[in-house]
């Protein structure tokens, strides 16, 4: 057991899903040929002026509401001044004393325990460009496509004491932002990024230790690992009688270690001051109410609705809602076939199983919820056997297409062929006198054996119900 306990706070940057950038009309989409998505404004040419994207303001207000923040009635923008080649104006338009959102809360659940994380503030700012280093020609190139993409920065209070809590929080934030339509939260594309402020103190101490800030954390795995190694590093320092220096550290995922980037002494003086190009905004209650009303159903409400209205088990609803893509798929499916329970079961039991096995990819499914729902309906109405449904699903995953077309083509329908059923079952009963004996002497369990044999031999030619009835009838003769 360690003699120390860690304390952490997070700074999360999330890119907003607005179509255009925050201060010009360029596309805010990820990627693109370098410098194809920029204009005189976002590339900082002299004389150009920023004009605030109202959609971005709407989105940050939504973010504030979903994290239970106070929304400032008066908000304004500031310039954060520093030189860097990826920042063409040499200042970032951000918010210092008057952010849009203040003091919120987010509930998380870690290993069955509920916990409230406090949000200090959320502000709206612009993203910077990217530098591409060409080591062969020893030059650096700047790509301004990302310049001016709207970002919100979510700053938490130092309320975290384990990596599990941090991960649970980020997962929760991702869900909230995705469901509210604010951010797609693709960590691998950098649309959500997280810095961790971390310190340790002796157990029982009231004071916090000196903190370091961890940067360059590109996945949840990296965050968990970085926290672990940084806690170890700080413990070793304190144990050996040294001090932790307040500094920014970069996590190197390959080496599994954090290295110092800069210390407090060489921190920038950003010379913040109000941006004279962007007038402050004063929100009216009506405007805020309208934005609040436009927030779609959030994850917790949705789980509750699935349980109450559809009778889905809470654990299953959690699984479906826990991935927005799956949830959207589920909604599309039940719109096609109104049997939420059966669809939920088949999504969790079959589709997600295949995804977890790596056979399918939720981001690149070749069919939609409606096609999936048709397949479930065919099963539920005894038009297709479970075994054949799996075959159809596999085909859909591999090549796409409608379940009807696939079943037609590969002759996978239940035909209710009573002659064949009688012939097959009679044969099975004739060939297995011992289980027949067992059944007749009261061992109901062997019934499953007969069902299995019959299913195998019939290959979906009869419905399970018909098979069951016929076997029961024959065995009681």
């Amino acid at each position: 057991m360690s003699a120390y306990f860690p304390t952490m706070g997070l700074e999360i940057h999330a890119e907003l899903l607005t179509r255009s950038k925050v201060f010009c009309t360029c596309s805010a989409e990820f990627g693109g040929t370098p410098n194809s998505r920029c204009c005189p404004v976002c590339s900082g040419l002299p004389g150009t002026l920023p004009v605030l994207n109202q959609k971005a303001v709407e989105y940050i207000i939504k973010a504030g509401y979903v994290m239970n923040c106070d929304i400032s009635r008066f908000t304004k923008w500031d310039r954060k001044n520093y030189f860097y080649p990826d920042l063409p104006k040499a200042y970032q338009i951000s918010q210092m004393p008057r952010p849009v959102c203040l003091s919120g809360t987010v509930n998380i659940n870690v290993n069955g325990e509920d916990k409230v994380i406090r949000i200090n503030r959320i502000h709206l700012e612009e993203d910077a460009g990217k530098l591409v280093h060409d080591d062969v020609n020893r030059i650096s190139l700047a790509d301004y496509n990302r310049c001016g993409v709207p970002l919100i920065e979510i700053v938490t209070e130092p309320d975290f004491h384990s990596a599990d809590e941090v991960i649970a929080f980020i997962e929760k934030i991702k869900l909230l932002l995705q469901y509210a339509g604010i951010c797609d939260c693709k960590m691998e594309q950098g649309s959500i990024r997280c810095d961790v402020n971390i310190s340790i103190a002796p157990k029982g101490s009231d004071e916090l230790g000196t903190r370091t800030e961890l940067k360059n954390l590109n996945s949840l795995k990296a965050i968990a690992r970085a926290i672990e190694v940084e806690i170890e590093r700080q413990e070793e320092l304190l144990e050996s009688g040294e001090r932790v220096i307040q500094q920014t550290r970069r996590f190197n995922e390959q080496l599994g270690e954090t290295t110092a980037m800069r210390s407090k002494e060489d921190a920038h003086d950003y010379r913040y001051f109000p941006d004279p190009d962007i007038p402050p905004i004063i929100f009216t209650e009506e405007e805020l109410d309208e934005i609040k009303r436009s927030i779609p159903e959030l994850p917790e409400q949705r789980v509750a609705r699935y349980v109450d209205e559809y009778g889905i088990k809470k654990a299953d609803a959690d699984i479906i809602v826990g991935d927005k893509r799956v949830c959207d798929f589920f909604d599309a499916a039940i719109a096609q076939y109104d049997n939420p329970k059966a669809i939920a079961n088949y999504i969790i039991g079959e589709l997600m199983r295949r995804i977890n096995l790596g056979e399918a990819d939720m981001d690149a499914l070749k069919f939609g919820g409606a096609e999936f729902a048709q397949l479930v309906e065919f099963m539920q109405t005894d038009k297709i056997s479970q075994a054949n449904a799996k075959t159809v699903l596999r085909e859909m995953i591999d090549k796409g297409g409608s379940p009807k077309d696939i079943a037609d083509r590969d002759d996978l329908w239940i035909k209710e062929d009573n002659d064949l059923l009688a012939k097959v079952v009679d044969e099975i009963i004739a060939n297995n006198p011992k289980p027949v004996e067992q059944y007749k002497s009261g061992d109901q369990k062997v019934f499953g054996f007969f069902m299995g044999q019959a299913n195998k031999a019939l290959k979906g030619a009869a419905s399970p119900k018909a098979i069951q009835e016929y076997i029961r009838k024959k065995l009681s003769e």
Partner: protein
Amino acid sequence: MNLTRVKIRELRKSLDSKEIGAAELCGEYFKRIEAVDPELLSYITVTKEKALKDAENAQKLIDEGKSTALTGIPLAIKDNICIDGVRTTCASKMLENFVPPYNATVIEKLNVEGYVLLGRTSMDEFAMGGSNQTSAFAKTKNPYDLGRVPGGSSGGSAAAVSASLAPAALGSDTGGSIRQPSSFCGVTGIKPTYGRVSRYGLVAFASSLDQIGPICSDAHDCAIMLNAICGHDRHDATSARVDTPDFTEKLGQPINGMKIALPKEFYAEGVDDAVKTAVMDAARELEKQGAVLVDCSMPGLKYAIPAYYLIACAEAASNLSRFDGIKYGFRGEGRTFEELIRDSRSRGFGEEVKRRILLGNYALSSGYYDAYYKKALALKQEIIRQYNQIFERADVILTPTAPTPAYKIGSQDNDPVKMYQADICTVTVNIAKLPGVSTTCGYTEDGLPVGMSIIGKRFDEQTILQCADAFEQGFSPVAPKL
């Protein structure tokens, strides 16, 4: 054709009556520029080729009977207003070869009118100065005395109009940069209300103070120019959503009963007697026309210079940070980014620009922000309050435009603080976002023009133009002999 102080509206008649063609007209100006400007140095770039194309286009409109106020009118544009495809230097080595790929909104508006571009006028580097002597390319002289400064920072525009090298020009005014050179060069220039004219495409000096405006032969031409360039612009969030009246509408209306305030601090120590006398004489002339003179006070004026320079330099320090040698403009040398940017900025900027960047960054530094920048913002509010008080009792305010007439080149080079003090009469108008027009009210014994400023309520350019025009009707300006 005699170009001497010819008015836009006179040229309009000549063009529409086909007395002269658009190409011929700009040709006349180019001839005069070639003859006079090698000595005067009012232009940095003369755009002859583009002008001929502009003129051809304008002539078509005129021939089709589709001419508007400025169709075919040759204009000079200060070299800090971006024009697509035309070098825009800000009179700085930093932007010596900068060619913007876009037009300022005012240029878009002038294009719609079918104006003809004569060229880009010189200025103090990045509009920082009041003498045009910080220009890296053309240290403009005063047309009335080539040994004196034309004022600044729009000194090139004012000198060009004064010497009839353009019938009118655009300038920009951050702390007096239209009005003071207009005063020194004996012409009329208006700084519109902040937000009246879009700043999009004006290379920023101090964003909360900058405003584009015209410099012309008289107030009437200023009104015509303002009509063409004003209006809300969706590319400039600080441009105002207000009605745009016809600024010529009130011209010629009697100023009977107009209350003109004379704040005593503007006539105090430090203002030349010759200037005071000329402005007071003008006040009495306006009184004769029926105006009522109102005594008043602006005690906050003594804080105006520090407040102005703190705000302007802080904004400038940030605005000029983008000139790092990476993307465009002058590129120095260096192995690392830091070295490259240090060398680019050290060699690309002139001394005055660097002085103001240093001052601005100092004022914004952590630990100094509250003591300087924040106090300056408080003073700004106080100055606005004092103006509001005066405007409760008056329609316009009359002050000298500058404490002195044009001074000798080099006479103030070693004393930046003294140079800054010379802006005392103009900076508060920018701080309070008010409109102000400067017109010539007399001449010194040496024949140097003296200007007076008429300051109005926010968005009341109509009244100050009416007042300036009323004075001009009874005043005979003397053009320089060049």
